[in-house]
């Protein structure tokens, strides 16, 4: 279907564009939860009687789990007369605190959760597309419509042509319904939009899904292309790092072209020439081997391919790396030695800064190799193989066998794209071509927004082309506006939650955390579990969803740890099993050789690709080359542009929250501008010759496209390198789509060749767009 129109704004529940309607206005003018009353513009009640009455009402504190950045930080929510009015973190919570006896907190995004719940721009009722237009519908109508269309889709095209785009559902029934029962076999996950080069290289070298640092026990921390003081997964991370500095006198080193809050707390900030991280890591390896500071016992007994690694770093001196990385050779030497001396209580931890690079896989491999070299793998104060408790499967508990409708799907091969041979599914950037070829014809997702993750223009067209688009979401955006069915999800505090982990301030304990719905769902929204249950029933799969409520379903999950859902929700969290460090000593590494693999030769699929690309399977340095490892800057496009994270905004929905946007802007002193989008951070040395000043609207032009946004000129970014915060602009959840969608510059071929991950680095030129933009 083409030429989709946006939902009509005449509906009471359609976007109001009222980004300026505050929660306060909302709370004080809407009669009751569920009333679809007009919320904008009314007078604010400052009647002292109301204020006084508020102080006398009974309040209760209930639990929630913040899902804004999916870290599930435990919340203590103050509820008064059915309204959530305040919140903070749960003391001692594995994610929301620094540990036992420590007060729980929420970060600025977490505290803005009420802004999400009571946001007047939420999708407040179901919508279905009829006669080309999105129209409001009752739940009954919408469920019936969706079930019918899904059935029809499967008959015409086969369920395997339905793409499951991985989002952030609050329930696992999304995948159970669409993948196992319906048969939507294709999934695009976050490995090709967020962390593929980092986690694939880790997975193949170390055999765990993903490492995470044991912050609080460390003595030397290298934050490599990550900014954990701001972009953390729970309050335990910044607290763990500060604890390490206070209690262990730990050294903190930040490697980043940007001065972040992590750099602010660091002993050293190495503002590296972007995309040269692999060279720096090799030189550090060179020094560590030369100085005899590596962990011989670990290397000897637990690793594979050390000789190949040693050979590759033999001539990679700090002086060699200085030329490439623009980091002083002496400094490289000092950091390498400091890191190795502190080992095994040391961590070199890369993240999205590395994963976003076209040569990111190789760079990440060289960084992981350092951890192997000094033997800090799964060590106290080193990288940690965190585990979660295994919970029961409620379907199995009830003896219900779910079908595996997705298993025998006939899926297309795209062998001309090297990465497609060994990534689990398909690359995000490749989806539009798959749609064009007719291999994908439909789309289901839960809280996801792919057009901001890469190849934007083609993705927008592809969504228009799809025969059936079904979304569960809470805000209008490029996907929900293009959908055929929009199911309005409740926010986290309006539904039950169960989470388990995993990384936390309890490095030797698995844990569970849970909460009941703190308030009733607002308007005509429903918890995702209820949506999938009703949809399943309508599709004739009622037998697979016999639970009367989600609480009952979650209760059965907890059978494995002998707790009831209510009991856990009441206390917020529980620590479960204990497990030790250095688990490989018992289990080995889950790799081809059972060892930590410096050299990936044993991984046949990767070895074949490396052979084809003419690269080593061991860590080495691959510069960007305009061919497979990313585009280089030149006279025409002399600046390198990428996007970054700040604490105040997650990639998901914070752009829809006035509180979060205001704080992001205020962080750069721009809260009082009449502008609510992202700013381009640029060094004065680049801004001056271009006659650009803070607030000027600038045009960022790449070889493929251009975006416009205001400039923020400051010394905290490397000359030659410019950046902004992503998730704003065209198609975003911001009610006015304020700002620039950075991935407008991105095209299908901008991918890292091993993992298929979107390469988010683009050579650009910046010019003043004229006038005072801000």
């Amino acid at each position, binding site marked *: 279907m083409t030429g989709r129109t946006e939902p009509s704004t005449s509906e009471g529940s359609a976007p109001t564009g009222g980004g300026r309607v505050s929660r306060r206005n909302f709370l004080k003018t809407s009669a009751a939860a569920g009333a679809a009353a007009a919320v904008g513009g009314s007078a604010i009640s400052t009647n002292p009687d109301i204020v006084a009455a508020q102080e006398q009402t009974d309040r209760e504190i209930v639990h929630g789990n913040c899902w804004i950045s999916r870290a599930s930080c435990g919340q203590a929510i103050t509820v008064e007369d059915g309204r959530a009015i305040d919140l903070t973190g749960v003391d001692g919570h594995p994610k929301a605190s620094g540990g036992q006896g420590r007060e729980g907190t929420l970060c600025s995004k977490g505290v803005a959760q009420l802004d999400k719940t009571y946001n007047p721009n939420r999708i407040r009722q179901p919508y279905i597309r009829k006669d080309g237009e999105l129209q409001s519908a009752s739940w009954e109508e919408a469920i019936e419509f969706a079930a019918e269309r899904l059935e029809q889709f499967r008959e015409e095209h086969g369920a395997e042509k339905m793409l499951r785009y991985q989002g952030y559902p609050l329930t696992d029934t999304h995948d159970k319904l669409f993948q196992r029962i319906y048969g939507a076999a294709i999934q695009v996950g976050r490995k090709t939009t967020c962390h593929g080069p980092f986690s694939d290289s880790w997975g193949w070298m170390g055999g765990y899904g993903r490492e995470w640092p044991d912050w609080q026990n460390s003595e030397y921390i290298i934050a490599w292309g990550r900014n954990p003081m701001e972009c953390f997964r729970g309050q335990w991370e910044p607290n763990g790092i500060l604890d390490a500095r206070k209690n262990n006198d730990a050294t903190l080193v930040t490697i980043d072209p940007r001065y972040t809050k992590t750099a602010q707390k660091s002993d050293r900030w190495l503002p590296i020439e972007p995309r040269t991280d692999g060279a720096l890591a090799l030189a550090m390896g060179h020094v560590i081997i030369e100085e005899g500071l590596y962990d011989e016992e670990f290397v000897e007994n637990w690793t594979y391919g050390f000789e190949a690694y040693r050979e590759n770093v033999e001539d990679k001196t700090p002086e060699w790396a200085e030329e490439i990385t623009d980091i002083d050779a002496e400094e490289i030497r000092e950091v390498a030695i400091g890191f190795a001396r502190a080992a095994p209580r040391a961590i070199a931890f890369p993240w999205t800064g590395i994963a976003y690079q076209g040569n990111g896989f190789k760079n990440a491999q060289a960084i992981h190799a350092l951890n192997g070299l000094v033997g800090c793998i799964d060590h106290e104060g080193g990288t940690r193989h965190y585990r979660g408790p295994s919970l029961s499967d409620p379907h199995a508990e009830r003896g219900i066998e779910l079908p595996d409708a997705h298993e025998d799907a006939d899926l297309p091969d795209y062998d001309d794209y090297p990465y497609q041979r060994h990534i689990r599914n398909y690359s995000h950037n490749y989806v539009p071509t798959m749609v064009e070829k007719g291999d994908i014809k439909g789309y289901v997702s839960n809280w996801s927004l792919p057009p901001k993750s890469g190849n934007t223009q083609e993705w927008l067209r592809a969504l228009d082309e799809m025969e059936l688009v079904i979304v569960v979401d809470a805000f209008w955006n490029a996907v929900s506006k293009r959908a055929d069915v929009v199911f309005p999800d409740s926010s986290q505090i309006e539904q039950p939650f169960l989470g388990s982990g995993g990384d936390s301030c309890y490095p030797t304990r698995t844990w569970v955390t849970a909460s009941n719905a703190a308030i009733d769902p607002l308007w005509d929204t429903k918890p995702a579990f209820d949506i999938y249950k009703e949809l399943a029933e309508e599709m004739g799969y009622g037998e697979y969803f016999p639970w009367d409520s989600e609480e009952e379903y979650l209760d059965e999950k907890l059978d494995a740890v002998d707790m009831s859902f209510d009991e856990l929700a009441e206390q917020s969290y529980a620590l479960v099993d204990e497990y030790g460090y250095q688990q490989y000593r018992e289990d080995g590494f889950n790799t081809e050789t059972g060892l930590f693999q410096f050299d990936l030769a044993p991984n046949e699929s990767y070895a074949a690709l490396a052979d084809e690309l003419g690269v080593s399977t061991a860590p080495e340095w691959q510069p960007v080359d305009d061919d497979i490892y990313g585009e280089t800057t030149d006279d025409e496009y002399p600046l390198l542009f990428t996007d970054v994270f700040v604490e105040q905004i997650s990639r998901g929905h914070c752009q829809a929250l006035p509180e979060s946007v205001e704080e992001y802007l205020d*962080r750069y*002193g721009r809260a*009082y501008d009449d502008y609510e989008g992202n700013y381009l951070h640029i060094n004065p040395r680049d801004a001056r010759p271009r006659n650009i000043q803070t607030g000027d609207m600038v045009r960022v032009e790449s070889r493929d496209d251009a975006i416009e946004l205001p400039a923020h000129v400051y010394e905290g970014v490397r000359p030659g390198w410019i950046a902004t915060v992503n998730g704003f602009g065209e198609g975003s959840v911001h009610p006015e789509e304020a700002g620039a969608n950075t991935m407008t510059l991105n095209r299908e071929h901008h991918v890292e060749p091993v993992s298929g991950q979107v390469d988010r680095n683009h050579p650009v030129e910046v010019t003043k767009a004229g006038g005072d933009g801000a």
Partner: protein
Amino acid sequence: MSRQWAFYFDTQKCIGCHACVVSCRVRNDVGTKEAKWRRMEHVGEGSFPDYKETSVSMSCFHCATAPCRQVCPTHAIEKRERDGIVTVDQDKCIGCHYCAYACPFGACQYGDDGLLQKCHLCLGEGAGDGHGKPARQKPEDGGATAACVDNCVTEALKAGPINEILREASEEAANRYSESDVGPALVVEPVTQESHDSIETTDPTG
């Protein structure tokens, strides 16, 4: 001065996350684009790569000899005997903004009604005046703990009676406070000797 309440702030611990700011908004139900009782300043110094930032969480600091109070023509601003918290009687405030000129910290803010509102150390929620509220004796009295303190991710921000605050502070911070105990009721851990004095504040409305 033992009954003076004060804030404590440690720049070494603050990660500049703004949780304190949003918490203040949420607890006191002040919408965005409205008065901002607490805000973060990120002060940058030097040029790349010798660039440094300091983050400071700012609010009304309930000054010992409150300059805002001294200029107020209607005596709407009170320096409370009982706990040193500086409150506003909005019935007396005429919205002349004199206090904003006098306050060195940009703490005086005004609502849609044009009247002064600012941090009242969470003496109850809303309104921003705190006028006539019972005294804070201990951190847990007089309503809940300050929201900004409650959610400070790293315990960089604290509030309490000055004697308790000083007991927990470093010697240097305590000395510095004692030298100027006519000023803001704020005990700040030094960043480094040199850079601390250069932290400037800006007028948020400017």
